[in-house]
């Protein structure tokens, strides 16, 4: 087990930079996720670490070894694929033994370690099956056992849970995290699922268009997004086009539509810029006291119940709509459409990003 670091790591195809000079260090035993929409470069980073894609710039270090120029078979990594990528012509046992045999482990040692790895993923009795005789979740557990068996220095996951159904995905998240903690193995996990990234990771790197937007703990990513993109990508955001009206210090005032003005604690753009304003649904509060100052007057347009939470679409002045989320029990749990309400939004929860229409 070792730390994994990137120094100015970048990849371009022709003139197109898919990964823009990223530097970061994953500490020994740490679980780090790269999170971002498809095409943000997160998978390219993973494939560069694995040696399947050659970087255009920069270095990759495992511990203190520079592995940038090493072929995949000399890097001592474990890689788990979205497609499982099991060897279909080999039994589960032989799949797990594959990497051990390449490291010249043989005889009783081999047998012991294959059985250990299979026991770790709770598939001890499945050694003689072929991959196609297993369910998707079982296949992915075999893939994990196969990657773990040779005791890799770093474990890489490429969207490993995306092909599983929702309930199984939740189970596997917990199981994976337990395994990773137990073995203390440095892990890089690539996903487009924010729930996965936030719940499993020690730190999360949010990426967009090949650029690392923020690399921080899940709590910081969620509560203190560094950029408008991070705010718009994490949680369930409202996204309304608007304009920066004025600036004051770090923050200022933004206008939604053409009537509603809101203070914002932190803004990246100068006054007069057309922007998309991001406000997270759970940051929009329904006030029971209609007379509170700074409240936004509106009426309920739609109510949507989703178990533990209720979402309201609230129509404000000038036709602007915001979604407010609240607990599905309590005073505001059952408001009928057309009920007049008052909304309040914290200045800390208002973010802006370049308007989609206006270009970046």
């Amino acid at each position, binding site marked *: 087990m070792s730390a994994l670091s990137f120094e100015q790591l970048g990849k371009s195809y022709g003139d197109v930079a898919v990964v823009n000079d990223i530097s970061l260090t994953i500490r020994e035993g740490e679980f780090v996720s790269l999170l971002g929409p498809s095409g943000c470069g997160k998978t390219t980073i993973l494939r560069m670490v*694995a040696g399947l894609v050659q970087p255009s710039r920069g270095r990759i270090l495992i511990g203190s070894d520079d592995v940038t120029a090493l072929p995949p*078979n000399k890097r001592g990594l474990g*890689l788990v*694929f979205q497609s499982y990528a099991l060897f279909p012509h080999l039994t589960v046992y032989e799949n797990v033994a*594959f990497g051990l045999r390449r490291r010249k482990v043989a005889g009783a040692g081999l047998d012991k370690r294959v059985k250990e790895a299979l026991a770790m993923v709770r598939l001890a009795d499945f050694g003689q099956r072929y991959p196609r005789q297993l369910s998707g979740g079982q296949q992915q557990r075999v893939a994990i056992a196969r990657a773990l068996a040779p005791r890799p220095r770093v474990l890489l996951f490429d969207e490993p849970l995306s092909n599983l159904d929702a309930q199984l995905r939740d189970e596997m998240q917990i199981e994976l995290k337990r395994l990773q903690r137990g073995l203390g193995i440095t892990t890089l996990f690539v996903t487009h699922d924010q729930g996965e990234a936030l719940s499993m990771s020690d730190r999360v790197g949010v990426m967009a268009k090949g650029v690392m937007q923020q690399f921080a703990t899940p709590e910081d990513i969620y509560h203190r997004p560094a950029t408008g993109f991070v705010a718009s990508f994490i949680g369930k955001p409202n996204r309304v086009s608007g304009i920066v009206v004025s600036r004051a210090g770090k923050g200022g005032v933004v206008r939604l539509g053409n009537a509603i003005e809101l203070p914002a604690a932190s803004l990246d753009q100068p006054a007069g810029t057309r922007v998309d304003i991001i406000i997270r649904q759970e940051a929009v509060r329904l006030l029971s006291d209609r007379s509170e100052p700074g409240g936004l007057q509106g009426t309920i347009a739609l109510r949507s119940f989703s178990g533990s939470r209720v979402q309201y679409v609230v129509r404000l002045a000038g036709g602007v709509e915001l979604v407010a989320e609240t607990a599905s029990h309590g005073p505001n749990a059952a408001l009928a459409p057309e009920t007049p309400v008052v909304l309040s939004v914290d200045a800390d929860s208002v973010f802006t990003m370049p308007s989609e229409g206006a270009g970046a």
Partner: protein
Amino acid sequence: MMSVRRGLMLIAPLALVLAAFFLVPVLMLLPTSFSEYMPGSGLAKGVWTLENYTRIVTDEYYREVVLRTLGLGLSVTLVCLVLGYPLAFLIARGPERWRLPLILLVIFPMMLNLVVRSFGWIALLANRGLVNNLLIQMGLISAPIKLMFNLTGLMIGMTHIYLPFMVLMLVAAIRNVPRDVEAAAATLGSSRLHVFTSVTLPLSAPGILAGSILVFVLTISALVTPRMLGGPTYRVMATLIYDEYMQLLDWPSGSALSFALTIMAIGIIWLSSRLTKRWAGMA
């Protein structure tokens, strides 16, 4: 799931055509193959015999032709596989823009008539053909090498003609090998060569066997090329059958040979499909 009845209806037109114009005529040959041939007068009436079949095994000349046919089939298949796999690999894995031109190049010979292609080989391989003339003029040999009317000539001609079938089968099979599975082997410590032998090759086995069966069956049943490049004396089963029918008018013997050839072909197909299943872990 489609119902059995609809399935049957869909294959009915082809099945009827095959039954009327292929199966029935072939079955009509069955009694002929057990008849006795009287030189000069044709089939002997009411006499049944197994001799037409036993002769294929006991007669030294027939046995030689059968073994030669099988040997030719095996060697052409092997050469096609060895020459075709690298080409198929390049087409399947090489740069995208090479794919279409390469496939067209592979298919192109198939657009020319078989007779034309065989004549082309005669012009090249004959005693006074291009290859021998060139070698003699370069002073490498003094007398022409025999490149026709023997196994060499047949091998060259048939390999050329059936290589495209092998390549097309292999391209499809190699493109079906998931790149992730190869990448997985690489990250687990396999060198490029080991990735190829332990993953790519076994996973393309169905294509290797399908291509081999196709080339083998086509080779052992080919008539035109062996006729032209093998001449009247160097015979394989197909040319022998042709001669039994058309020149010796010995229909019973020709029929028996035809059935022997068919049974061999079916036997090989059956054996290979069992092999595929075991080899590719699909048993």
